[in-house]
């Protein structure tokens, strides 16, 4: 199992163009030893679910700063399930108020990182919580 590097899809759903965080996380995850695919901006939930399946991702990290997280996160999860890839771990971050983070976790989002989270914490979380899909 040590020979398979985890593949993480870092994705920017929706119309929001704030990619500073997503790019920093992508780079930190890559430096942390994971294989990282960054989708670029302005992805629809369909595009992200499709890319996750195509790229055989073990986890999908979503970055949303536009306030549309309560729509976009569940939609990505639904579309992953629809493609039989519901076991892909979905985590994310952005401008997400605490009550929304709680709700998202209840919906099955594995973790939400909010402003101020360190890249180290995120890398560590992925290492400890994401397992390769078989």
């Amino acid at each position, binding site marked *: 199992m040590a020979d398979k590097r985890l593949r993480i899809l870092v994705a920017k759903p*929706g*119309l*929001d*163009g*704030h*990619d*500073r965080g997503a*790019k*920093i996380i*992508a*780079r*930190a995850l*890559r430096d942390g030893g994971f294989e*990282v695919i*960054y*989708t*670029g*901006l*302005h992805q*629809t939930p369909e595009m992200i679910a499709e890319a996750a399946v195509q790229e055989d991702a073990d986890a999908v990290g979503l970055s949303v700063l*536009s*306030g*549309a997280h*309560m*729509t*976009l996160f569940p*939609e990505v999860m639904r579309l992953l399930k629809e493609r039989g890839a519901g076991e892909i771990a979905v985590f994310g971050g952005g*401008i997400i*108020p*605490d009550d929304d983070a709680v709700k998202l976790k209840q919906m099955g989002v594995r973790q939400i990182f*909010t*402003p*101020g989270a*360190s*890249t*180290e914490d995120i890398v560590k979380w992925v290492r400890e919580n994401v397992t390769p899909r078989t």
Partner: protein
Amino acid sequence: MSKKKKWLETTYRQASERPVRFSTVSDMELEPLYTPDDVTGSYDEAIGNPGEFPFTRGVYGSMYRGRFWTMRQFAGFGLAEDTNARFHFLLGQGQDGLSTAFDMPTLMGYDADHERALGEVGREGVSVSTVYDMATLFDRIPLDRVTTSMTVNCSASILLAMYLVVAERNGIPWDNVGGTIQNDMLKEYIAQKEWICPPRPALRIVTDMIEFCARKVPRWHPVSISGYHIREAGSTAVQELAFTIADGICYVDEAIKRGIGVDEFADRLSFFWNLHNDFLEEIAKLRAARRMWARIMKDRFGAMNPKSMMLRTHAQTAGASLTAQQPMNNVVRVAIQALAGVLGGVQSLHTNSMDETLALPTEQAVMIALRTQQVIAEETGVTNTIDPFGGSYAVEALTDRMEREANDYIRRIDEMGGMVKAIETGYPQREIAEAAFHFQRQLEQGIKTVVGVNKYSVPEEIPIATLKIDAAIEERQIQRVRKVKRERNSVAVREALARVAEACRSGENLMEPICEAVRRDATVGEVSDIFRAEFGVYKDPGWI
């Protein structure tokens, strides 16, 4: 040996020094002391008096002794009537200019009823799809007396057309309409990442707007050349300065190529800078920017009118510097950043609200932000004398150094063939991502401190109230847009859109055809669709 060197080797060496890196937030290392030895250039040539070339000390002769800066809080959320109410609240609180935040679909050229708008309608700004939304947004606001700023870029031509049509319907001639539209597409590819088509056609639309405003809407600022977003994306202060001025050079080049004389439009260009935490660096940046622009306009473009050489600017405190942790601390950050802006001589200012890392601001939080400006203006006394930091050895030395370093970047961009080429190769984008990553690493290594985040954190945060946007407004706005589409004369709309498409192809100025299209109820999304069809759609290269 200079006196300073001698001092460094004797008195300073014997004194103690904390074991830290003495560098700005942009990681520019500073010397322990600046003295007259560090300031080069004569007073008249490099600094000069306010209102005179090279405008280092300010663009106006009397600066804030004449009038304060315009206090202009950026606002927008929900439906047009929600934002209109916030506008009236702000004007009632002593604010003197309006600034409109649109939602993501509007900013990206989609109507509220488009599938890509799902979940985003009215979230991050106000939703405007039709000219009727625009009319509601500015209801009971005298468009000939209040200046309005609109933050919108790739769909700016359409939103400006709607604003002008609303003015027209209120009986206000375009000559009397004053304001600013951001419309700085180059920085979109560099930093903010809102676009429809690729850079070259986008630049053509911007140039159409510069030309159109110079001839038809003389009090309007057709581009606000923006460093703000470059900095928010993680650039250093010098990169912000360099890339922004380089963007400005590109717009001036394009307008001149169009055959417009530099002095016919240059006094209508304005700027928009970020105000970050590093107090001295920010004051120096604003002073350096004014001097650079004055020299560039005079020497590079041969401007004759001093007004063409004046860098007039809006500024906003740095959103990215605010923390979700202990959010009340943000009030302090904003105050210090705003003070730097005032000491840097800005013409217009937005102060962020303390809760903006969590949501759009509440009315209470916006009021504190506005009061911060009023305290600076009317209590601190910094407005009594012009450019009080002028002549500070440190500030003058930093001003010189930032100008020099920014000019190095501009030279590199010139060598690449200009800003569009540089953008196409990803040069500024990568430089910014690199700087953002560098800062993040310094933060995590404790080289840089963010109070309440990597130092002085508390185990239990005290939650503050935040603004909630009612999810039901999306459906209401969708119904509203659909109603307009159902009830309008669709043949007239189709004809008008075909005229826009024809102008896209022929190279005729797009603004009149777009004005006609919105008069006939064409929507933001429909005109944007013409751009998509005629110019193609730009895709993010996704450089990490």
